[in-house]
Structure formats: structure tokens, C-alpha cells
């Protein structure tokens, strides 16, 4: 007879630093071993339950839900949820423990909904028994019975091959028999297989902050705490068959799995807080949608009306009107507060969203596919992502949601922080006793793109390559380090919060999933990440922060203050000046089209319409680049290559992108047209493409696609083309509507840069860090656009950078790093102007460091009797006497030399990270007097193929995985930005120079590619001699 056993006390890696296997691994191993069910009982939460449930569904077994609870004495024991009510109770209990950690929480009226096991050697029974304290064990058992009820407590028995197992188990059996409690066999596994014990040991060391050599008895005595087969467990407990039998009976008794999670998205309520019925919600949504459509379209034509009716009918059928109304309510709240917001993602395919003002793209005019957003085949909820200005304005909206739904009904989704190469190496090398300098060297060594994403073999090779220069292959601990490093990569490290995903509920979110406090005050976070929530059918609303929206909002606010308000909704969408700027690739600071790759592509693409801009936004993505799709599109657009729509059935789908699949909708529709995928299958494909954590899911869908195409006699060549295009989208695919939404913001940012550059740059500078470039590069770019940037001054600057007139900005006091008295300076100055340095110091009371910072930055130069920065530095050191009379200074104060231009530059970079003064390269050129070295602007007038030498400051180094090892550098000088291309071989030879230095002199050949863009093909590169390294600005590096 086949042995039957269920493991009811298993830990996964989500019992942070305790278990060493992913929940999916535990489940798959359990299924392999022939288990019917297994309970993952992670410490203090249901962290791994959702993943376990998903994996169990795939493997055809049941993942029971439970958690391990900590007792005040440091012991802990597992509790299993026998029913949905039990799950709710435990979830609420865990929430209470997390949110109110200093209070004692007990269960009330548990009934038979929760089942307690007595735990392992750290359990409330074993701990006193191991210390020979049998009365304490009896008391602990009685306490458990009192809490959970007599029929709901099981005494766990383990046999881990330890000498004292026999004695301990005899005592446990005696206790169970005395209290008439059933015995339950368990192995309390910490890992799926024996080999994962090593990682569990390493985690034990991290938990106790000790290296392996000193951990001693904190480590596992052997590798027995893994999942054992039912046969092994039966053999192990051959003398106690009832302990095995009880596991089976108990697992059968437990009827609850996460399949029965009772989550319901809240209904929209009327003004009095009463939830509306579905019909009432639909009626309300219809009213809002038609009112909004009238505002958007004026008089709605038939096409719009038909689409509205189609969408409203589907929304009603699917039961989603409440969702739309709730999102509408959020957007209305933001609008009411003057907060810019715009929906993105597939929601932009919906005319209802457009009418409600959630999105800004007209899907009827743009011919967007509503079914990409919502279809009857889709089981999941629609996904509406809304962008808000990052920072305080978005926080206002988030806090509004918390306030509206209540602290226990709203939370952010979690973000599981996993071990990445650097953290994995740092912690594992620490555990093995390597000095921190080894980890430092590993961190600074060039990573390989195979480090994380490749298959295990590639990862091992990448690690070997990387470690070769750090440790000798003969090092006695290298093998252990390599094993631990590989094993820990991708394991959960701790829980963070998602950037903007919120979930809400109207009947107790804490009963659906435990909540815990986020690191940001006033926020709570659920124990599942966004994918887990989606798998569990929990609806998420993404309230995302977009730095550019914040910058644009600030620019508009400045414009309004200056008496010339602008409504972005009314700006023309076909402004030739904007497209001219895009064609010039003069896009530093704008949204989405400012990157080095975008700047390189814009002159080739030469966008002439808004839709061209949407394509430009979508085209520079890792997905299309991997798929080798950029050049085909551009070649076809410029007539260098014939248009090929892959298959006749794809012609209609790919026509607008010249036969090149650029958008996710196109890929889905291709699958439907060529492979005959149904809507549900296409949705499965979309989910596989969106799910970054599972290659398997993608492989399965791809195999299905291939099979269906073969069935339909699609040629192998076409199949390969379609599969390749889908593969490239798997990670970064863009829906068309999303591209259009982003293009709207990109267009608006370009329009602001063209027509209101002063406000545009002020907004950008005030919302750093964001975007691709440093403030210094933005300042240099502003200067090239005839904007004068005035330095920080304690007499004239406000806290933020302000616009003085259409051509002048004044940097704000917040630019000085570490200055905490900016507000006081402004408020004191508003009371009365500062009359002297003494007056300034006596009223503002900056500390010694702040005084020096202000003087060094030149912010005190405008005060009377302060001639230059050094004079200010001399004067601020004189202590202020707290006399009755206003102190006055007499005598000669000019003892120090004034700063040279180079010194001023250094001081600016040290205090502000940017300078309004000359570019460091200009100073270098003046000093060196050389004419041999060209400037960026010189390249524009030189022919293709001539050898040149150019020098500048690196503001961007990129070596994307898609570039086959080649490297790109943007080199800035006083005239602009030059692009360098460093072939792989040259990069390998000069890696140290490229990654360590800030200023380069490069020798190479000038190349003029498509779009007439000059690029320097670098043959050799040296550090630039005679320049101060501290004059360098932050570089945007990715190498």
C-alpha cells in the first residue's frame, strides 16, 4: 500500500533567514515525492502562501495555509487555518502582531477554525523539555489547549537523527498521553532537498551575525531537515503509525486553501457611505461617462456612442462599474487638489477611461483595441495605472485612499527584495569569513549580464570569470563561496513596498492578507507582491509617481504665478517647433526621449507627427532591440528596406508600424490571427509576457503557439519570426496605448522646453534626482538655449530655483547640499533685508558647517563687505559675540586670495554638485592652449571617416546587454555632447580607464551614420591630463 503522509509544518525562504528553499521549490518537491498536501507555515506571516498556492495548483496538490507564531519567551509554533474563518482570524491576528507589536494579542472564539501544532525544538513544549523542565512544558501545552481548544492541538514528533530525539520524543508522547492529545509526525523541513542545508546554515549565521567558523551549535547538526518522502517518514515512524495517520486525517480535515480566498473589490458607495448595487453603479458610471464624453468630444458621434455603449455593457457584464467609479473618484480628488495625473497602460484603450478623464488618449480617434484592456475572456480585473507627480502630491493621493477606506482596508502591495549579485556576494563572503575588502572588490568588478538572468551554468561561468581576479582558484573556501552565492541569488531577503500599487477592500483587507507597517510613516503594506496579488485575484490600483509630471506641474505653477497660465490640454499637438527640436535631437531633460539611445535615433526617425513620437517612445526599449527591430523599422521608414508584414494575416495588424511588431497589442493580435489563439489564450500570452519571474510560463505559451501555427500550416520561417518577436517582448513589451500615454507627456515636456524653457529647466532642477542627466548637464543645456543661470545667493535666492524672467533663472538655496537653514534664510529676509554678514549670521544662526558651505558656494558674496568667497570664508569663522549691540566688524578682512575660476568650479561641485560657471573643459582648453583636441560642436562640420581627437567629461557610460559588449559614452564639453562608440575589444583593453575616469581624451575615426549624426569610433582613450577630477559631475552609468 502506498504510504500516505502530509507535511504540515514546513518553512520556505519567506521565513526570512530561516528556510532556504523558495515556496515553489518546496511544493514541486512535495509533489515529486507524492504528497497530496503540504502546509507552508512561514514565520509571522503568509508571505510565501500565494506562491505556494499557485505552484500547488500547477502540480495538482493542495497547499495548506498556516503561519508560525512567536511566543513572548522566544519559542514559536505553527498554526494552520482549517477554514476560511480560521484564515481570517489568523490573518487579522498577524496584522495585529505586526501593527501593534508591543501589545499582547490573543485569539477570541477560535472554535475549530485554527489548529495549533506544538512546534519543533524551538517550540513551547520542546524548549522546556530540553532543559529538563517538564512542568513548564505541561503548562505550555495546557496554555495551547486553552487557546485553541482540546481538539485543535497536536503534539509534533520529529526524528532528525539526533541522540536526544528518543528522550525528547518519549517525554512528548507521555505529555500527549497525559493530556489526551494526538501525536503528529513531521520533519519540520527548512529546505526541499538535503543539499540546501548549506544555505540554511549560512542564513543561520546571518541571523546571528556570526561567521560559519564561530556559529558552532547554531548550525544544523546534520542535513535531515528536508522534505522526506512519505515512505521515508513512514519508516522513520514505523513504531508510531498513528503519528503518520494523523497527518493525513488532519490534512483532510483542513478544507481551506487560498482557492477560497474571499476577496471582493469594494462597491462604490453613495454620498452617505451606503454601497450601491451593480445596476446603480452602472447607471452612475454611464452618467459620468456620457458627461465626460460631452466634455471631451463636444457632440458625440455615432462611433463614440457605439464604443461607449459597447464598453459600458461589457463593464456591467463583468461587474466592474464600481472599479471604474472608484478610480474616477481618485482622479477627481487629485484634480480637485490641482494635482496633475494621467492614466497609462492599457486603460488608455478605453473610451470610458478617456471620458472619465482617467486617461488622455482618444482611443476612438487612435483606433485602439479595447479588448486589450478588457475582454470577457479575461478572468482578471482591469489594470489601471495612474501617474501622479512624484513626491508630496502623490503622497496626498495615497493618504486620501488610506483615509477613505480605513487603515485596515487599504495597503500598498509589497515588493520582495531578493538577493542580487552584490548583496549575495557580500553576505555569503561575510558568512565564510572573507574580509569586507573582497566583497568591495567584487562589487567594483565589472558585472556580467549573465549574473542573474542566465541559466545556472551561465551564472556559474559568469561568477568564475568575475571572481578570477579576486580569489585564486585554489582558495580552500572558493567552492563553498561559489555554491552559496549561486544558491542565494534570487532568494527573498526582505520585504519592501511597491512603488505605487495599492489594494483596497471594504470588508477588512487585514482578513484577506496580513498587513504590516511600511517603512514610510502612515503606510501599511500587504505581505504579497503585485504578482501574488494578481494571482489571488486582488485588484491593484497603481498610483505611480512620475518625476516629470512633478517637474511639469511645477513649471506650470511658475507660469501661473507669473500671470501667464498654461493649460496643457490645450496645447497644439502638431507644433512644428516641437518636431523640429525632436529632429535635432535637442531633447536633454525631456521625458522618455532624452536618453543617449533616443538622441541617437531621433535624427534617423525624424518624427513629424504625434504618432511618430509614440513609436519613438516604444522603439527604444530592450524588447524591440533584442528582437533586432529598431533598424528594420527605421530602414523601412526611410525607404531602405521593403515592408514585410511576416504573414498575409498580419498585414492589417502591422501596417501602421510598417510590418514591424512594436506594440504588445500587435503581438497578441498576430497570435490570434496566425495561430488562431482565442481571446483567453491571447490573454494567457500577455500574462506570460508580463510575468517576469517565470520563464516556464513563457516557454509553455510559446510551445503552444508554435504547435498551433504548425497545425495551421504556417511556414517555419514565419513561425520563427513571430516567436522571435514575442520573445523580445517578454520583458519590456509596451502596449500601444501606454506608448501613446507616455508620448503625450513626452510631447508636453518638449513643448515646454521649446516655448517656456526657463520654467521647464526650473521645474527639472527642482525635482532632481530624475531623468537621465545631472543638474550640471541641465544647466549646461539651459545655457546653450540662452538661459542665464544665476548662482545661489542668500540675498536673492528662494528655497527652490526660481524664474526671474524668460531668460534667467536663480538657483535655489536647496541646491546647497547639507544646508538646513534655507527656510529660515528666506523667512528672515522677508522680515527685513540682511544688512551685513553679521546681521545675516545673528538672525539665521547657521551652524559652522553651514556657514562654510554658504561661503564656499558663494551664496554670501552679495552681502555688503563680502567681496568674494574666500573673504566670506574668512569672515564667517569669526565667532559672533552675543552682545547687546549689533556686532560690527572693523579692520582689514581681505587676507585671503580670491578663488580662481577652477577653484570656484571645484567649490560649486563640492557644495552643489553643479556649477553655473564655465564648463570644466573650457578652463582646461584655456590652460592647455591646445587646438589639436576638438570640441563636440566641431564634429558637426567634419566629414565622415577622418581621424580626430576629442576630449570631454563623461556624463553617460552605457554597455547594454543588447550591445554585444560594445560601449557608448556621452562626452560633454562646453559646446555640447559628443557620442563615442567603443568597440568591445577596445573596451576590454581600456575597461579600467573607462570605468574609473571622469574626463577622457579619445582618439578615433569620425563616423556619420543615418540621420547624419556624428559618432566617434574610438581607437584609443586616455585619462585627460591636467584636469581636476572633482570637477566631474555625476555620470549616468550602466556598464
Amino acid at each position, binding site marked *: 500500500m502506498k504510504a500516505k503522509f502530509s507535511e504540515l509544518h514546513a518553512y520556505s525562504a519567506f521565513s526570512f533567514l530561516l528556510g532556504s528553499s523558495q515556496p515553489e521549490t518546496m511544493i514541486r518537491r512535495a509533489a515529486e515525492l507524492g504528497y497530496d498536501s503540504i502546509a507552508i507555515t512561514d514565520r509571522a506571516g503568509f508571505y510565501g502562501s500565494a506562491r505556494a498556492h499557485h505552484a500547488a495548483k500547477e502540480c495538482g496538490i493542495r497547499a495548506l495555509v498556516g503561519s508560525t507564531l512567536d511566543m513572548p519567551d522566544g519559542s514559536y509554533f505553527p498554526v494552520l487555518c482549517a477554514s476560511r474563518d480560521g484564515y481570517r482570524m489568523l490573518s487579522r491576528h498577524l496584522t495585529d502582531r505586526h501593527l501593534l507589536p508591543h501589545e499582547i494579542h490573543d485569539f477570541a472564539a477560535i472554535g475549530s477554525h485554527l489548529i495549533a501544532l506544538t512546534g519543533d525544538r524551538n517550540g513551547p513544549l520542546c524548549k522546556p523539555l530540553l532543559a529538563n523542565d517538564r512542568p513548564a512544558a505541561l503548562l505550555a501545552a495546557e496554555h495551547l489547549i486553552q487557546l485553541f481548544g482540546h481538539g485543535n492541538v497536536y503534539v509534533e514528533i520529529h526524528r532528525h537523527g*539526533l541522540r536526544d530525539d528518543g528522550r525528547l520524543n518519549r517525554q512528548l508522547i507521555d505529555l500527549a498521553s497525559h493530556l489526551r492529545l494526538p501525536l503528529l509526525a513531521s520533519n519540520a523541513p527548512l529546505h526541499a532537498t538535503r543539499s540546501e542545508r548549506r544555505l540554511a546554515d549560512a542564513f543561520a549565521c546571518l541571523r546571528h551575525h556570526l561567521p560559519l567558523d564561530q556559529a558552532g551549535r547554531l548550525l544544523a547538526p546534520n542535513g535531515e531537515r528536508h522534505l522526506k518522502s512519505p515512505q521515508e517518514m513512514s519508516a522513520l515512524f514505523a513504531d508510531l503509525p498513528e503519528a503518520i495517520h494523523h497527518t493525513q486525517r488532519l490534512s483532510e480535515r483542513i478544507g481551506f486553501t487560498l482557492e477560497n480566498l474571499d476577496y471582493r473589490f469594494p462597491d462604490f458607495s453613495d454620498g452617505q457611505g451606503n454601497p450601491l448595487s451593480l445596476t446603480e453603479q452602472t447607471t452612475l458610471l454611464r452618467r459620468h461617462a456620457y458627461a465626460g464624453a460631452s466634455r471631451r468630444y463636444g457632440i458625440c458621434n455615432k462611433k463614440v456612442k457605439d464604443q461607449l455603449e459597447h464598453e459600458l455593457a461589457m463593464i456591467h457584464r463583468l461587474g466592474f462599474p464600481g472599479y471604474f467609479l472608484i478610480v474616477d473618484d481618485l482622479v477627481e480628488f487629485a484634480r480637485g487638489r490641482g494635482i496633475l495625473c494621467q492614466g497609462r497602460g492599457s486603460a488608455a484603450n478605453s473610451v470610458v477611461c478617456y471620458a472619465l478623464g482617467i486617461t488622455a488618449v482618444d482611443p476612438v480617434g487612435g483606433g485602439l483595441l479595447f479588448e486589450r484592456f478588457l475582454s470577457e475572456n479575461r478572468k482578471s480585473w482591469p489594470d489601471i495605472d495612474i501617474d501622479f507627480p512624484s513626491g508630496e502630491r502623490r503622497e496626498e493621493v495615497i493618504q486620501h485612499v488610506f483615509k477613505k477606506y480605513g487603515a485596515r482596508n487599504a495597503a500598498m502591495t509589497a515588493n520582495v527584495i531578493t538577493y542580487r549579485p552584490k548583496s549575495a556576494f557580500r553576505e555569503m563572503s561575510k558568512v*565564510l569569513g572573507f574580509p569586507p575588502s573582497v566583497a568591495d572588490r567584487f562589487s567594483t568588478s565589472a558585472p556580467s549580464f549573465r549574473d542573474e538572468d542566465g541559466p545556472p551554468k551561465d551564472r556559474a561561468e559568469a561568477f568564475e570569470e568575475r571572481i578570477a581576479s579576486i580569489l585564486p582558484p585554489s582558495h580552500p573556501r572558493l567552492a563553498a563561496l561559489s555554491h552559496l552565492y549561486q544558491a542565494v541569488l534570487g532568494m527573498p531577503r526582505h520585504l519592501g513596498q511597491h512603488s505605487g500599487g495599492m489594494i483596497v477592500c471594504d470588508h477588512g483587507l487585514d482578513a484577506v492578507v496580513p498587513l504590516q507597517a511600511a517603512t514610510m510613516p502612515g503606510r501599511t503594506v500587504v505581505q504579497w507582491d503585485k504578482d501574488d496579488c494578481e494571482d489571488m485575484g486582488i485588484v491593484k490600483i497603481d498610483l505611480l509617481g512620475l518625476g516629470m509630471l512633478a517637474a511639469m506641474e511645477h513649471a506650470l505653477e511658475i507660469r501661473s504665478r507669473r500671470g501667464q497660465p498654461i493649460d496643457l490640454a490645450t496645447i497644439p499637438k502638431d507644433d512644428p517647433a516641437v518636431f523640429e527640436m525632436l529632429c535635432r535631437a535637442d531633447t536633454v531633460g525631456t521625458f522618455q526621449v532624452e536618453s543617449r539611445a533616443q538622441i541617437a535615433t531621433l535624427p534617423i526617425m525624424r518624427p513629424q507627427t504625434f504618432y511618430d513620437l509614440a513609436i519613438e517612445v516604444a522603439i527604444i526599449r530592450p524588447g524591440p532591440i533584442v528582437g533586432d527591430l529598431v533598424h528594420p523599422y527605421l530602414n523601412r521608414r526611410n525607404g531602405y528596406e521593403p515592408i514585410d508584414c511576416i504573414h498575409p494575416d498580419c498585414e492589417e495588424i502591422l501596417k501602421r508600424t510598417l510590418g514591424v511588431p512594436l506594440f504588445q497589442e500587435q503581438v497578441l493580435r498576430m497570435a490570434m490571427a496566425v495561430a488562431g489563439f482565442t481571446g483567453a489564450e491571447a490573454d494567457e500570452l500577455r500574462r506570460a509576457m508580463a510575468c517576469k519571474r517565470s520563464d516556464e510560463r513563457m516557454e509553455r505559451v510559446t510551445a503552444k503557439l508554435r504547435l498551433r501555427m504548425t497545425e495551421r500550416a504556417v511556414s517555419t520561417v514565419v513561425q520563427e519570426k513571430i516567436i522571435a518577436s514575442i520573445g523580445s517582448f517578454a520583458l519590456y513589451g509596451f502596449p500601444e496605448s501606454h506608448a501613446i500615454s507616455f508620448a503625450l507627456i513626452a510631447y508636453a515636456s518638449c513643448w515646454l522646453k521649446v516655448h517656456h524653457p526657463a520654467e521647464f529647466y526650473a521645474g527639472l532642477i527642482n525635482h532632481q534626482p530624475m531623468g537621465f542627466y545631472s543638474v550640471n548637464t541641465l544647466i549646461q543645456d539651459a545655457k546653450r538655449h540662452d538661459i542665464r543661470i544665476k548662482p545661489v545667493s542668500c540675498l536673492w535666492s528662494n528655497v527652490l530655483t526660481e524664474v526671474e524672467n524668460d531668460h534667467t533663472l536663480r538657483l535655489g538655496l536647496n541646491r546647497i547640499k547639507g544646508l538646513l537653514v534655507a527656510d529660515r534664510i528666506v523667512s528672515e529676509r522677508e522680515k527685513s533685508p540682511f544688512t551685513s554678514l553679521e546681521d545675516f549670521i545673528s538672525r539665521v544662526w547657521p551652524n559652522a558647517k553651514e556657514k562654510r558651505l554658504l561661503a564656499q558656494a558663494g551664496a554670501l558674496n552679495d552681502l555688503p563687505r563680502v567681496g568674494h568667497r574666500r573673504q566670506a570664508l574668512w569672515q564667517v569663522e569669526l565667532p559672533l559675540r552675543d552682545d547687546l549691540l549689533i556686532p560690527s566688524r572693523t579692520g582689514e578682512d581681505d*587676507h585671503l586670495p580670491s578663488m580662481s575660476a577652477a577653484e570656484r568650479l571645484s567649490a560649486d561641485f563640492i557644495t552643489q554638485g553643479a556649477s553655473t560657471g564655465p564648463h570644466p573643459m573650457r578652463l582646461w582648453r584655456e590652460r592647455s592652449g591646445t587646438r589639436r583636441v576638438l570640441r563636440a560642436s566641431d564634429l558637426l562640420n567634419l566629414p565622415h571617416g577622418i581621424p580626430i581627437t576629442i576630449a570631454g567629461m563623461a556624463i553617460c557610460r552605457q554597455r547594454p546587454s543588447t550591445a554585444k559588449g560594445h560601449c557608448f559614452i556621452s562626452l560633454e564639453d562646453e559646446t555640447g555632447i559628443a557620442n563615442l562608440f567603443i568597440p568591445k575589444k577596445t573596451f576590454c583593453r581600456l575597461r579600467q580607464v573607462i570605468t574609473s575616469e571622469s574626463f577622457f581624451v579619445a582618439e578615433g575615426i569620425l563616423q556619420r551614420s543615418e540621420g547624419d549624426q556624428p559618432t566617434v569610433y574610438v581607437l584609443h582613450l586616455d585619462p585627460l591630463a591636467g584636469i581636476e577630477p572633482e570637477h566631474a559631475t555625476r555620470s549616468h552609468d550602466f556598464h
Partner: protein
Amino acid sequence: MFAALHIPDFPVVAAMRACPAMQDSPCAVLEIKATKDPQEKLPLLSINPAARAAGIHVGWPLNRALVRCPDLRVLTRDLPAEATLRDQLVHLGDSLTPDVEITAEDAVVLDLSSRKTPDFSTPFEVEIWQARALTPDLAHLAARHQSTRGKTISPSDLMPLPLAILASFVQKSGSLALLDLWGLKTLGDFMKLPRQALIERLGPEMGRWHDLLHGKTCRLLRLHRPPESFGQVFDFDDGVISLDPVIFALKRLLHTLSGRLASRHLAASRLDFRLVLESGAEMARRVRLPEPQTAVEGMLAPLQTLLESLRLEAPVISLQLDAETTFATAAQREWFGRQLPQPERWAETLAKLEALLGSGRVGIPVPAESFAPDTFTLHPAAEAAVIGKSFLPDCPVPLHRFRPAREISVAYETRGRQPWPLALLNGPHPGEIIARRGPFPASGSWWESTDAWQRLEWDLQVASGHLIRLVFQTPDRWQVEGIYR
């Protein structure tokens, strides 16, 4: 008049003495400091002239230096070599004048006021810069710069020297950073600033610097005196083959030691003695005294016990004795604390045991914090008077361990992937196994490539009735580890 001697690039020069072949190669030593910021890059602490010629400067991060000079050899800072070199420098100073101050790690200042200017041309293994001035600090500063070395300088000669040279004086780097912020490049820039204004701004220390650079202050040297040693040597005229002359000589040395300790109000806490044999071999022993002692008898007894246990291969030609000192015990005896009534007897007993068992084999065994079998640590018997933690054995039945465990042959079958013993074929108690508990698997030190261990243990009853602990280790090694009594 004062003179200063300075070894330029001291850390790298000291480190390079171990590898003279690299004299012409660019070399550098990295700064060693405990940094909490894992991202902080360690700067170059010291470089040699070849590295300087390659355009590298002290203070640069290593990666920047490597870009300029890919051949740069990074040496590990060698603190013992630095100490040796410093001792040699001090010795050189001592040979020139008795009044020597160790002013910095790499410099000494000599007081020449009571003697003629000595000859500085004494050959030295590494390059030494020297300079003379009317005050010790001026001499020290002048010796640190190439342009003033070998000269007798006045304050005005120092004016072109870089301000950074003051770093050798300054404990806090903040003041120098501020002077740098002020744009002061040379000592002259600093000397030109008004003294009173400087003091008002930066405090009296700046005034002291100002005076020092203007030669207005001349401090007394903190003279170097070698540390006092209690080491004594007794050379025998002829090789001694009996114990009595050694004891006699030892007593004499102890009397001298006792007198010297008493005159300094010190006591010996540890004695190191060494016998040099005619064969050239040496025998050294260290005796830690249970209580600090000055009495000859108290010190002699444990030494005598040790000596009596010795069996030497050759006659003794020399006896060396040294002591580690501490302050004599001044603590009042506790009323309720249990203390050794006669610590000297305890020390003597330990010395006897050590003589019997060997050095380092006497102490209090405590089970080690490890699952590794039969591991314990030995706490020094003289120190670990109280072992607070109680240890519960895994098995309550006493085990008579065989050390080392006895290798035996076992008849076994394989169950699953594990061996299953059936009978012991040889060893102390061969016979059929009639009852067993186990196996108890245990493993550890898996991270060590050579010391990883893995074993299976059984508690067995053999036909003869004996209870035995049997161990199996891969690939096919059976041992009897002990017998339960």
C-alpha cells in the same frame, strides 16, 4: 640647535625591504582603516619615487593610480618591518646624540645643543633626509621636504614649503582642510596671516602653529628612553649536566629580579625561562603565576618543578630569565568569595601536571560549541576558576572513549543509501549485534575543503552484552568510538 632625521615614503620603503628586487618598479602601499562605508575606496598611503615618476600621487584611489600606471605593484603594509626600520632610525639617532625624540613614525629629532654637529654621513640602508634649525619643529618640518633637506634653515626658508607638510603635526585633519579651503598653499601663506585674527577664528592652536613656524617657540624634546627590561642571562663556564647548578643560578637571577621588581613596586605575573644547550638547541618554558609575585620562593617553586621534570639531550650552557610585570595585588581579600588559600601550591601542582603531560595540555576542558565529535576547548587552569555554563550530555550513560577511536571491520548491508551494521568482526568486543539505536547522522565544516566531516553513529549491544558506540565514515571506515559503562 636641533637636527631632524626623516625617512621619506616610510611605509613603502619599509614594505619594499622584503622585496629588494622591486626597487625600480613603481610600488605603493594602501591605507588601512576600518571603514563602515563599503563603497569607500582606500587611498594610496605611500608611493615610491618610481611610482611618483609615473604621475601618481599619495591619496589617490587605487583604481585611478592603476589607470595611470598599470604596472603599479600594490604592497601590503608591513607593520613589523616599519617597527624595525623605526628602531634602526632611533638607533641611528642614539648613535649621534643621547637626546633623541621620536617625533613621528618616520622621523626623529636630535638635540644638538650640548655637542658639536655630528657627522650625518653615516651610511644607512635607506635614504634619510636631515635638516637643522633653531627649534625642533622647524628642523622636523625642514627635514620632510626635498628642497630644505641637508640645510640649516631659518623660518623664512620654510615659506615656500607646501602647507600639507603640517599634516605631520596635526592630529585633527579639520583645521588643515579649512586652511586648504582658504586657499593657503604654502607655509608662507599661513605665516603671513595676522596671528591675532587667526586665533580669534580658529582658536589658540593656530596661534601655536603660527609661533612655531615663525620660530618663536622652542619646546623641550620628549626624550626617547628604551623600555626597561627584566631579562637576565646567566652563562655557565662549562656545560652543566646536573640540576643543582641550574637551580642555584636561577635563584640568583630570581633574587635580582625580585629586588628590581620591589624597587619599582611591581610584581611578576609571568616568567619566561630558556635553557640554551651545548648542542645549540634551546628549551623554553612559560609559567603563568596564579597571583603576581615578588617573593623568590613563590617564583622558584613552579620553575623548579618544571626543571626537575626535564630530561635534556645536552649540557646546559646558558640560562635566560625574563618576566612580565604587573602591579602588585592591592585588592582586599573578599569575605565571601572563594579564593585559593595557597596560590603558589596551585601553581606548583599545575607545573607538575604540565611537566608530566606536556606544554599546553593542562587546563579545564569545556565541551566545544560544535557538533563535531569529541571536541572540547581547554580553558587555562589558572584563569578559568569558574565555568558558569552547565552542559547536558546528549546521552546520560557514561561513555568510555577510545582516543583515538579504534578502527574495526564490520559486516553490514546497505539499506536505502546507508550502511546497516550486522556484526563487529574484530576490535575490542567482536560479535553479532543484537540491539541498536541509530543511525545518528552528523556532519559539519562543509565549507572547508579539507576539514569537512560527515558520519553515522550507532549505539549497539553486541552478543557479549557490551554497549558500544560505532561510527561509520565514508567511504568505508568503521570505528569503535567507545564503550558505555
